[in-house]
């Protein structure tokens, strides 16, 4: 019975009951809900679909296949760990928002048609913004507002695209819009207008270059626990949707390459470590987008595997920084350092997360990222392969080294705080265990991938090369620090594309207002001058001495009357 409802519905509806549990119990309620949902998902018949007829339209509200399965599973795992991580939070609103958000993301990745997808898409946007607003500061409020506007815009584009697509094809089924099979590739020019709008909608949520900045703007403004939720769902839902709808779209390869590159440079100079993680997240999405663009079975498997591993280690990293924020009150690198003395467990967990994202062998990132690099290699895409290698070194820089180093080591800030609460440590321990378990025993993950694979990540060559890349990157860090060439952390704001809508547009609009004001006042002046001249003329001509106002002689009047009568006579004869 339960399997006829969208997975995640337990969480969405259950969340509405959480307020009745009170402040203390609602956190546990959230954990119970996400666990129940996982049980329901796990026991659901393996691959099935449910159709609902609504307003004469068949909606495929549940479609669970291999793609939905792997994303739905990891979304559940993320929701459970994030719930454990948030057990100490006594703010019911956050738990409600978190559950609705996670539940709708799970329902979205099990949606078979575009309308169901749209509904869940918007629900994730509207529910997640409360995790940012819960911070309670003016900055968070404004940032949340921008986030909401951008996310809802993405949803509106998705709906418009879906409607146009329906008008053109008569179908709302969510499948590859280019009709491509794995291994085939198409170009953006082959897309109709509807799917193009949908691509932009996915691109906004997936943080494509130039559309990306909502991510770095909002995630660092979320609460310590809220950002852990945020990091897991929104962008990976976009990755899932791209893989489902646009696998093999060639342009995605280059969009993905750009995504892997530019964030690593921004991450080097960013002071807020949670914003560094947001840039790092953006860079990781790039790897997945490249995989979707390549579109072979190996590449798509790589994308799915990387999304799976990424959600876990990225949550872990955000959890470790959340723990720092919870204890110290800030995640600015300039104010941290030396925390390994007071938060030893968090330090170890953060380093495991950093190692996993950098792709050290025996950790999860290695077994998934290798697939995407190998896929680029198999297709003989040399430039792509080189870019991904540079990006790998960049990941080592900002997530493998910068995050743990500046938070827990570096110059001792003298701050002595308590270790993170037990529930945070438990959640981080679970995520760390997953990172190691997947890295060592990767076969269960590979068995879940969308396509069957015999891929072998641990070849001698692969392992040695990866070690060379990462160890020498680390050596470069030591070299730069010793030579005092590594840029010091500075309290600063670094501009990004959000400058366009936070500074440029408001200024342009202000200037435009001034211009309109100027034209308006000039126009008024000109009109006033004309009226004044007219009045002057009237005064002149109708005044006591004006020619219209003065008394005229009787003879001239008789003369003009005669002329008029004469003219009338001539006209009459004509």
């Amino acid at each position: 019975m339960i399997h006829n409802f969208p997975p995640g519905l337990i969480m969405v509806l259950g969340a509405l009951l959480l307020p009745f549990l009170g402040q203390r119990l609602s956190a546990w309620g959230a954990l119970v809900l996400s666990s129940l949902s996982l049980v329901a998902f796990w026991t659901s018949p393996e691959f099935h679909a449910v159709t609902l007829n609504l307003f004469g339209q068949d909606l495929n509200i549940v479609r669970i296949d291999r793609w939905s399965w792997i994303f739905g599973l990891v979304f559940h795992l993320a929701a459970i760990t994030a719930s454990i991580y948030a057990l100490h939070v006594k703010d019911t609103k956050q738990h409600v928002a978190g559950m609705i958000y996670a539940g709708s993301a799970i329902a979205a990745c099990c949606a078979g048609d575009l309308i169901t997808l749209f509904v869940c898409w918007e629900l994730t946007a509207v529910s997640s913004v409360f995790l940012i607003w819960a911070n309670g500061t003016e900055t968070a409020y404004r940032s949340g507002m921008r986030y909401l506007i951008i996310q809802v815009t993405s949803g509106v584009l998705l709906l418009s695209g879906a409607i146009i697509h329906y008008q053109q094809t008569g179908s709302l089924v969510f499948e590859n819009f280019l009709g491509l099979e794995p291994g085939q590739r198409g170009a953006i020019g082959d897309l109709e207008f509807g799917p193009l709008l949908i691509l932009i909608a996915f691109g906004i949520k997936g943080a494509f270059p130039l559309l990306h900045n909502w991510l770095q703007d909002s995630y660092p403004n979320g609460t310590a626990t809220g950002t852990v939720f945020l990091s897991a769902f929104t962008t990976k839902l976009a990755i899932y949707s791209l893989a489902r709808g646009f696998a093999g779209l060639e342009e995605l390869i280059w969009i993905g390459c750009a995504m892997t590159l530019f964030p690593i440079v921004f991450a080097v100079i960013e002071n807020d470590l949670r914003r560094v993680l947001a840039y790092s997240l953006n860079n990781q999405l790039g790897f997945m987008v490249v995989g979707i663009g390549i579109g072979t079975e190996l590449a798509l498997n790589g994308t799915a595997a990387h999304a799976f591993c990424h959600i876990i280690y990225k949550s872990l990293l955000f959890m470790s920084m959340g723990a720092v924020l919870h204890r110290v009150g800030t995640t600015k690198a300039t104010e941290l350092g030396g925390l390994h003395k007071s938060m030893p467990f968090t330090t170890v967990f953060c380093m495991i997360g950093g190692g996993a994202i950098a792709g050290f062998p025996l950790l999860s990132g290695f077994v998934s990222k290798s697939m995407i690099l190998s896929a680029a290699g198999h297709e003989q895409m040399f430039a792509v392969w080189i870019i991904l290698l540079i990006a790998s070194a960049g990941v080592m820089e900002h997530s493998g080294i910068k995050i743990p180093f500046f938070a827990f080591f570096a110059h001792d800030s003298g701050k002595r705080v308590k270790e993170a609460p037990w529930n945070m440590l438990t959640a981080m321990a679970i995520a760390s265990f997953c990172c190691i378990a997947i890295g060592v025993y990767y076969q269960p993950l590979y068995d879940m991938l969308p396509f069957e694979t015999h891929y072998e990540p641990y070849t001698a060559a692969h392992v040695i090369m990866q070690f060379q890349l990462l160890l020498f990157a680390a050596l470069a860090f030591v070299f730069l620090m010793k030579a005092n060439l590594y840029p010091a952390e500075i309290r600063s704001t670094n501009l990004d594309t959000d400058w366009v809508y936070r500074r440029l547009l408001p200024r342009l609009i202000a200037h435009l207002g001034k211009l309109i004001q100027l034209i308006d006042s000039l126009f008024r002046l000109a009109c006033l001058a004309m009226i004044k001249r007219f009045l002057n003329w009237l005064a002149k001509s109708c005044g006591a001495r004006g020619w219209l106002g003065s008394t005229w002689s009787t003879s001239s009047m008789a003369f003009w009357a005669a002329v008029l009568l004469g003219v009338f006579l001539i006209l009459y004869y004509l």
Partner: protein
Amino acid sequence: MKPKNNNSKGGDSNNETSWLERNVNVVIAGLVIACIGSLIAQFWWAPLFAEKQVEASHVEASHDEGSHDETSHDEHMHDEASHLHPAEFAIEEVFGFEAMFGFVAFVAVVFLGTGLRLIIMRDEDYYDS
């Protein structure tokens, strides 16, 4: 995972220093040894790889002569062998390529970042003012 500690001067005088802070050089030495180890490993692996290639070509050869029953098995073996193929590009075979690449890419990214600061860095309260 080792080079996480560096340059720490031991904090304030009234703060205790940790083992890591007192032994930064040990950590760095460990890293250097690991780096050298990864280079040596490539030496060790190169002949190993050659053997695998011989094996793979042997499998291919036997596949030509083999009966139909063995075909699928051989193909599987061939698949395995192609997955063991370490290098998709010739440049990967160059000794220490990835090592050099990792070092140079890291330094380049950091310098690019430093340069980017000139353009995009503003006061911390830039958007608040």
